[in-house]
């Protein structure tokens, strides 16, 4: 990798002011994705601002009865938090489904939100890529696109967001707290990541220099039934081909409330809101679940090599909902 200047931020304000002065400055915390990208010359920052020692490592209860998760909480600590394990099992399991123990020990919550696609064309600088360099083209659209998007893609980019944790956070209606030079703001999770459109170089709606400080989890009464199903090419330590985060609130046999989000299908964690609306008031049975799955995938536009993802996603949604209807657990 190219060399860079290194500074250790001594406060959030200090970090934000350094990163806001120069667009070639990047934050680093766990570094598990950024160091890898720098080795591949995908990112060549002039300066790294190390935020890893800032005081954003706590998980606290909010007044509303949810959780405020500091941006520097490691993936391991969030997945292992007793309250998350019992009240938001879909979040624990989504994190445990991702990467390996070594990576989860280093990777932070803020960094997980900022990780970039593992599209092999993005990763290989011998190829053009609109995400790496705008207006150069997208060889994935016509190349080997087995792992790519089936929903919300554009002519510019068919890459998918690689995160598991973010799928659960989307389903749980989390919010992202960020700090910039202009002050603090809170972004609903579903608005944090972007669809590619004609600006696939922008993954998120963060403004230049903004730093994630926390993720806010609202209380979700039925999150205890939440499940996370991840399907991949090998049983562990692989990115999702597709994944599903789902939770159901039942009143007897009837569905009162539902959450469904998909991973591995789009440029952002994909919340299936229309399917959720359909589920409300219906009987919790196989036929309802497969109808909801049809609705969730009705706009799917598969590419040459990923048509299998459509059927796989539908079946995964049905299975995840069935397990959630039984109270949750391993899908």
């Amino acid at each position, binding site marked *: 990798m190219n060399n860079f200047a290194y500074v250790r931020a001594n406060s959030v304000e200090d970090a934000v002011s350094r990163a806001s002065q120069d667009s070639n400055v990047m934050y680093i915390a766990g*570094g598990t994705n950024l*160091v890898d990208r720098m080795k591949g010359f995908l990112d060549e920052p002039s300066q790294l601002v190390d935020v890893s020692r800032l005081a954003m490592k706590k998980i606290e209860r909010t007044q509303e009865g949810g959780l405020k998760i500091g941006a520097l909480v490691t993936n391991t600590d969030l997945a292992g938090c007793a309250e998350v394990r019992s009240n938001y099992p879909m979040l624990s*399991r989504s994190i445990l489904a991702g990467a390996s123990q*070594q990576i989860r020990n280093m990777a932070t919550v803020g960094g997980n939100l900022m990780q970039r696609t593992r599209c092999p064309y993005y990763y290989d600088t011998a190829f053009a890529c609109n995400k790496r360099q705008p207006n150069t083209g997208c060889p994935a659209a016509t190349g080997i696109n087995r792992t790519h998007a089936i929903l919300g893609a554009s002519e510019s980019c068919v890459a998918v967001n690689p995160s598991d944790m973010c799928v659960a956070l989307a389903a749980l209606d989390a919010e992202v707290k960020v700090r910039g030079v202009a002050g603090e703001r809170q972004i609903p999770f579903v608005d944090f990541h972007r669809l590619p459109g004609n600006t696939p170089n922008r993954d998120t709606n963060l403004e230049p220099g903004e730093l994630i400080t926390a993720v806010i989890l609202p209380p979700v009464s039925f999150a205890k039934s939440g499940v996370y199903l991840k399907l991949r090419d090998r*049983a562990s330590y692989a990115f999702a081909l597709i994944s599903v985060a789902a939770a159901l609130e039942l009143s007897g046999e009837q569905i009162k409330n539902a959450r469904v989000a998909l991973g591995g299908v789009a440029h952002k964690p994909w919340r299936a809101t229309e399917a959720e609306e359909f589920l409300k008031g219906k009987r919790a049975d196989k036929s309802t679940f497969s109808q909801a799955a049809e609705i969730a995938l009705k706009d799917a536009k598969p590419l040459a090599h990923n048509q299998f993802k459509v059927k796989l996603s539908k079946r995964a949604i049905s299975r995840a909902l069935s397990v959630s209807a039984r109270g949750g657990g391993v899908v």
Partner: protein
Amino acid sequence: MIRLKINGQLQTLNVEPRVTLLDALRENLGLTGSKKGCDRGQCGACTVLIDGQRVYSCLTLAIMQEGKEITTIEGLATGDNLHPVQAAFIDNDGFQCGYCTPGQICASVALLDEVKNGSVSYVTPDLTSAPQLASLSEAEIKERLSGNLCRCSAYNGIVAAVQQASGQNPPSPAASNLGTEVS
């Protein structure tokens, strides 16, 4: 100049910010036990412990680890007495070529601590009930070690080594499935 505490000793190094912990260990300090397999966080051969937690030393910058307690494979034994996990790898043929072994052993040492501290994994049936060492299943061991690849595929021996270090009775290496395959 940066100062790193490695295997209990404070070391002063003159390295650029871009130098990874793995390269600092191998190239600057002569600690070549940690191996460079993929150098991209995909194989696990570079696994070391930082403040007791296993990490990939290829994915972190040396400069970011100032003030932390770093333990490498060289720091596990006490003099000529092997760490119990090292001994278990020998007892159970937990390797063939040996290249991934330092990473496998460091990862296994951390794995045992994690289980002792009540950690759960993706395959734990009930997240509110963490598995115990004595009953840690093969599925749990495999899931928890999935971040370390062995291209000789000595996985049976590796799992047996972890079982032994967990206080379980692993199958004898002599009773491998080779016999059943031949007959």
